[in-house]
């Protein structure tokens, strides 16, 4: 569908959000998820996509509720399985832009297997992982990205597990595009998502957020504003990170595009399979 110039100039939120029906949203006041949603719709706008050609698929958790608010083809699936649902949709609708929104528990614990296999296949989905280091909706249990020694309702004596490095995991598993930013760096986040959507192949953007309601409270990290300030201070570019002395690196969140490589996309490869199979039948 061609989007008229005049329409394009209107406000992004009017075009891409289900603003008349579905607000106010369910998220806690001060949560970073809304910023990620804003970054996504601005990215969709920047790429110039119409609402009809975008699908947003989510799993379960705070992030799972995002598809309700955006005016795309939207699907709120089961916990951890969003990428698998999206894989089926992308296979039969390869022309659609399929954006999958997940939290850290959703994408990396219950959905960890689907995450690495979607990356390995390099199927043309954009995975946005909102990392707040905790299970927020269920009330603050430790997740696969909870830092070691941090507290959670299920880690009352401190977490003894190591957190997953999401971006390195995605890179090792075969993703075509991998980037990380934070909800403080909203414009950069939107820019990375814009690049991710345009990438053919599996693209991953880790959006580092926070949960002041559960994780922040139990770890005495202060209000949403204070947690946001921490993202501002700790979020450093790759170049800045490399210049830092070793002892100052520990708490830093490295922002940037880590992977941007051209590898054949899965649904395009499958089209070749169809051509080969049909040739064999004709012969």
């Amino acid at each position, binding site marked *: 569908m061609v989007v008229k110039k005049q329409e394009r100039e209107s406000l992004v939120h009017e075009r891409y959000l289900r603003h008349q029906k579905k607000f106010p949203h369910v998220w806690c006041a001060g949560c970073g998820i809304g910023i990620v949603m804003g970054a996504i719709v601005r990215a969709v706008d920047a790429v110039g996509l119409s609402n009809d050609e975008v699908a947003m698929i989510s799993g379960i958790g705070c992030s799972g509720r995002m598809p309700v608010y955006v005016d795309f083809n939207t699907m*709120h699936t089961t916990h951890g399985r969003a990428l698998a649902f999206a894989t089926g949709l992308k296979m039969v609708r390869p022309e659609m832009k399929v954006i999958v929104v997940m939290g850290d528990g959703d994408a990396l614990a219950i959905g960890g297997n689907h995450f690495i296999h979607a990356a390995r296949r390099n199927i043309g989905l954009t995975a946005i992982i909102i990392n707040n280091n905790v299970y927020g909706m269920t009330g603050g249990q430790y997740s696969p990205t909870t830092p070691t020694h941090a507290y959670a309702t299920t880690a009352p004596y401190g977490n003894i597990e190591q957190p997953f490095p999401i971006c390195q995991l995605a890179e090792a598993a075969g993703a075509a595009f991998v980037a990380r930013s934070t909800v403080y760096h909203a414009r950069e986040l939107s820019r990375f998502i814009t690049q991710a959507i345009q990438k053919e192949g599996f693209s991953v953007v880790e959006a580092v957020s926070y949960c002041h309601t559960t994780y922040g409270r139990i770890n005495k990290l202060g209000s949403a504003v204070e947690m946001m300030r921490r993202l501002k201070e700790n979020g450093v570019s790759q170049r800045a990170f490399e210049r830092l002395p070793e002892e100052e690196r520990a708490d830093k969140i490295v922002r940037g595009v880590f992977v941007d490589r051209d590898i054949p996309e899965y649904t395009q490869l499958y089209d070749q399979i169809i051509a080969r199979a049909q040739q064999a039948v004709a012969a």
Partner: protein
Amino acid sequence: MTARLMQGDEACAEGAIAAGCRFFAGYPITPATDIAEVLARRLPQVGGKFIQMEDEIASMAAIIGASVGGAKAMTATSGPGFSLMQENIGYACMAEIPCVVVNVQRTGPSTGLPTSPSQGDVMQARWGTHGDHPIIVLSPFSVREAFDLTVRAFNMAEKYRTPVILLMDEMIGHMREKVELPPPETIEVVERVITSVPPEWYKAYENTPSDVPPMISFGQGYRYHITGLFHDERGFPTQRLDEIDPWIARVFRKIERNLRDILIYETDQVEDAEVVVIAYGATARSARHAVRLAREQGLRVGFLRLSTIWPFPERIVAEVAERIHRVIVPEMNLGQLALEVERVVGRRKVIRVGKANGEMIAPREILDAIGRG
């Protein structure tokens, strides 16, 4: 079409192609793997797509995604994988997504006896996912019926916007029989109901007179929301009783009012019978033979073979049981469908012939039960 030697799994795969299936996602498991192998080769030939997923949970999810994209979609597995699929089968029930799930049953629980036949998943097929929901479950007793019921499973899935489970067993899946497949032009193929209203009027879960709301694929200009939460007519989450109750009533009603189409069965010599054998799947082959042997001995025995086991054909079983003394229910489990038979036949005696050790039930064992009494 000429007769050919064919395996049950292969007949199922060919039935899927004939019904218009153009997407398959699965994970290897004996005795269902053959279905995936045939479709990996056959689907791209007809422009369809096959994908081997990382597990059965993902397979079930992928076929739902594909169905939402507009493809007729199927997966195939056996007991262990079927257990893994249950949560997403529930999602398909809640979101009313047409799809076909094949379970070629093997002996369980757990890894059990790979891969001896079983009919141990009758109750799991009905109640495997959590929560109340209607479901359609078909069970073939021959290679040809594996083909036919696969076509019917797709037709019902599309017509009623529901997952349909094809409950095969290892016997039927791996057995080779001479079959003659129907000419393609004679096969009835049903497409899902789409809408004629413009996008702004479209309600994906509208309470229509037919109780089956039209379903539009993603990417067609009709943007809407799909969720596993209880939802309103537009698909958005709701907790309002005046929206939840009509939804529950409608999804049950859309199955119940179409039982004439959904219930597939066959009776043989029940008119003068004093004893009736009720069977389905591979066990129906032994039962049919036992009935023949009993008739040869002059015993008045009839046969009711069920191809649809869920919804349970209550009225049909009750009617058949009305005029008789005893019902024999042989099945390769320790009495699952027999529970339903007992529920509907009143005071008539129900004799279970059950086995859950991986062995087929022999005609002799059923004949013994007929003679007992």
